[in-house]
């Protein structure tokens, strides 16, 4: 499940979602104005302390860095090659700080709070006759079902492997597309059965 939300009741969980998002946005903007590596390192330490304040489960979230490490090493190599190591170090620490800060918000914010905070951004859609609630629900559905699609793909791959012995094939794409469409039909039906995307009070 991508839903990285960490169950808990820490100080960070209690800060309103909108405030957290705004803080990360403003901090990112501010960070771009600074060029001192020391300031960056201090910011990074602050973010790491935030994770540490969530306890062991919070620190475990830092495993996210493993996925990033390849990219960061590549970035460092490029800067080393072009002899701009100082800039490279800046870029890497800045990226690390921002990604970790954004992830910290995801980890400590429930999906419905996040949606409620983001929903006003969809409000202009109402001007062209689209419902902001629908857009927000759409985002929720993507977050909920993306991991499920991976499970479906895994099952197709297993079925393929059981009969061919090979691990993967582009031929799985067509059945995967069909499975996805069928699933979206089912989900749409379930949503409709509970009153549809617009609710029953409208």
């Amino acid at each position: 499940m991508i839903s990285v939300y960490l169950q808990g009741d820490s100080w960070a969980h209690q800060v309103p979602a909108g405030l957290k998002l705004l803080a990360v946005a403003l901090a990112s903007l501010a960070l771009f104005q600074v060029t001192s590596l020391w300031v960056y390192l201090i910011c990074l330490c602050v973010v790491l302390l935030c994770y540490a304040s969530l306890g062991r489960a919070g620190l475990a979230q830092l495993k996210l860095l493993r996925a990033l490490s390849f990219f960061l090493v590549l970035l460092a190599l490029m800067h080393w090659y072009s002899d701009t190591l100082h800039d490279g170090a800046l870029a890497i620490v800045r990226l690390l700080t921002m990604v970790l800060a954004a992830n910290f918000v995801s980890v400590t914010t429930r999906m419905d709070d996040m949606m409620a905070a983001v929903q006003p951004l969809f409000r202009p859609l109402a001007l062209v006759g689209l419902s902001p609630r629908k857009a927000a629900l759409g985002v929720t559905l993507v977050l909920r079902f993306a991991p499920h699609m991976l499970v479906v793909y895994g099952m197709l791959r297993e079925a393929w492997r059981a009969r061919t012995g090979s691990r993967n094939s582009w031929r799985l794409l067509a059945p995967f597309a069909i499975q996805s469409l069928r699933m979206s039909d089912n989900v749409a039906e379930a949503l409709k059965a509970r009153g549809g995307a617009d609710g029953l009070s409208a």
Partner: protein
Amino acid sequence: MALWPQKKNRNRPRVCDPDARPYAVFDGAGLTIGGKQILQGLTLTLQEDRIGVIGLNGSGKSSFVRLLNGLRSPSDGTLALFGAPSAQAEPELPRHVGFVFQNPDHQAIFPTVEEEIAFGLTQLGAGKDESRRGARTFLAQHGCEQLADRPISELSEGQKQLICILAVLVMEPSLLVLDEPMTSLDALASRRIRDKLLSLPQKIVMVSHDLDHFDGFDRLLWLEEGRLRMDGDPDTVREAYRRDVALRLGSEQEPAAL
């Protein structure tokens, strides 16, 4: 007790009476999808508290129960639901008819249990905080408060299905329709879910392949090739159904019979 007062709809007069008995009246109702006759000539009246539906795969069970909550509309004949013609009743049906699907993974929309339950209340017009509080209260009433913050993906199959049922019940429907709700459950979980269902005040229409699930039901409908083959008390219908299956096993050896 209503967890959230349902908002009055001023634009459209209410046509459904959720307490109407009979709650569904089929008169020569049929359903054709893409030129294929799925259901035909159904004439029956539903008023019992616990009604079961059986039949082989492709007999039209799923389509039949989907007529009850407006996911399908009859293409011939007439159907009255909660005292109103189905076409007029349709917009109100999600409020009166809770529908539980076979696969909980296709029904649960939200990542956590509490959000999934709260969704039903926001559908009825509650604000975010009210619906969240309402969801907590409701989960506690059903002894599930410890599940509230759990991600749905981490629940057992039985817990998932229970949450799907509660997510529908929180909207306080008068009728609960279930399409093979126990298919993915083990024997213990399926027994627990069945006991839970039987304890509910709601009227229930349930499809299942396991004939034992209909112990304690008032009536059993047997569909075959889109028609009502038999309709009566569960013991009589189950007995006839078992005999028919045995008979078919003896006479049909072709894969076409599967």
